[in-house]
């Protein structure tokens, strides 16, 4: 039913979504924590900046990434000197694009969760002699588990459906930058609707199962707490 090339595209999508979500969690946790707790007067400027990826249409965001990745730009030439290859048309480039594209979807739930938890549990842990890092990992992280699950699910799902950014910076290389959404688009454009339908169905099915799994876990956390 599904061609081998489409399976590879599906695998690339899953790999991209997993790695991007992981990077986003590592990146967003400290930022979200800082945003939730800082009393800095101008923190709303940072909040506005991290919400900006929501504003630009994905293809436009992708276009600017393409310019940014170019060996003629500072970032692109630095990367090229470092590795000998270009960021555009590479899996690494896609991860960078996805991280920017899905940033608000991971950051905002985390920030809200951390805000809701507040500083009190941490202060209680501190009076018991826990170091800040220790109390973060043994107090805040378990309390924030539903927030982490929501953030991961949103980040993962958003990257699965990513299209415009990849279209602009990917270059359609099988096994590297040809993700499922691009493969579906190719089928539609070349009027091979049957192939498009089956690949879209599989992508939806896989995503649905993953999300059900994630939210079921989220529920059991809440239930066990009650």
């Amino acid at each position, binding site marked *: 039913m599904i061609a081998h090339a489409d399976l590879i595209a599906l695998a690339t999508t899953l790999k991209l979504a997993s790695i991007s979500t992981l990077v986003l969690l590592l990146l967003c946790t400290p930022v979200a924590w800082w945003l939730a707790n800082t009393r800095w007067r101008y923190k709303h400027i940072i909040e506005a900046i991290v919400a900006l990826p929501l504003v630009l249409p994905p293809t436009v965001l992708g276009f600017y990434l*393409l310019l940014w990745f170019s060996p*003629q730009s500072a970032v692109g030439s630095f990367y*090229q000197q470092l590795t*000998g290859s270009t960021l*555009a048309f590479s899996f690494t480039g896609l991860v960078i694009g996805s991280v920017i594209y899905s940033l608000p979807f991971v950051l905002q739930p985390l920030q809200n969760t951390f805000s809701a938890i507040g500083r009190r549990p941490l202060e209680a842990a501190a009076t018991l002699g826990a170091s800040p890092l220790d109390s973060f990992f043994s107090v805040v992280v378990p309390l924030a588990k539903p927030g982490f699950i929501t953030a991961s699910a949103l980040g993962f799902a958003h990257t699965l459906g990513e299209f415009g950014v990849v279209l602009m910076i990917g270059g*359609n*290389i099988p096994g590297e930058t040809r993700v499922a959404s691009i493969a579906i*688009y190719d089928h*539609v454009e*070349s009027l091979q609707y049957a192939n498009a339908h089956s690949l879209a169905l599989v992508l939806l099915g896989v995503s649905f199962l993953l999300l059900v799994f994630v939210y079921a876990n989220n529920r059991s956390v809440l239930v066990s707490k009650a």
Partner: protein
Amino acid sequence: MLFKLTKQPRLFTLLSAGLACTFAFLSAVFTDAMAQQSEQSVEPITVAVASNFIRPAKALASEFEGAGNTSPVFIFGSTGKHVAQIEQGLAVDILLAADKARPQYLADKGQAINDQRHTYAVGRLVFWSPGRSLTGKSLGDVLTPENVLIEGTSVEGSAKKTASVLAMANPRLAPYGLAAQQVLTSLGIEQTHRRKYVMGENIAQTFQFVASGNAEAGFVAASQVQELPADEYLLVPQQFHNAIEQQMVLLTNKKQAKAFYQFILSPKGMEIIRKHGYDTR
């Protein structure tokens, strides 16, 4: 919750009310302007145009309009999308396609008026490599099976090894991509791991890949490089690939649609098309 209300609800309310008023005002102005425009035109026609033909289409329209005709409304995009939308009921009077297969497809489905289907332009492929002079060179000089890196960028032996990136349009989607693939086959060049091939969704995107400097060279349309220095590109001889025939198809019986269709095929229309880097039949 993506947005939190600020602590000053009154200020927030005021701001949103102000924004809402501004939008309402602007949309009223725009609707008005558009209504006026449509009153002026005789009989509005809509023409779906392949992305590679945007500039000649605009030039054709302004000439057509100058002769007292309607101003055609253009929908630019990929032919694949256009065909899918037309099949689902998008009201389009003429389709200027990027190939001849898809107008044929619409004609086979009985969508073409009187089976009206004509080749309006024959696309020419160029090998474009900005920042390096190609004067006096032939395509075989710069692209050979042995010299797998594009000449002038070969860094074998140097400390830094840079993979050379060659851009082309996706052969499955874009006629110019198919032609590029036929050129590589004609030259006996196999896809190797030492040269990275990247594919644009269409010829405009392929152009972007090269123009932004992310790809060192690429196969693009002659119409795209008209205003660039002549030594940056090589016109690909037509024996290397099948002709890139672009056909159009008449989809409705409107008078103005027929007139625009005929105008495109007229000597004046053909001259405009040739000026933009296409051949004509």
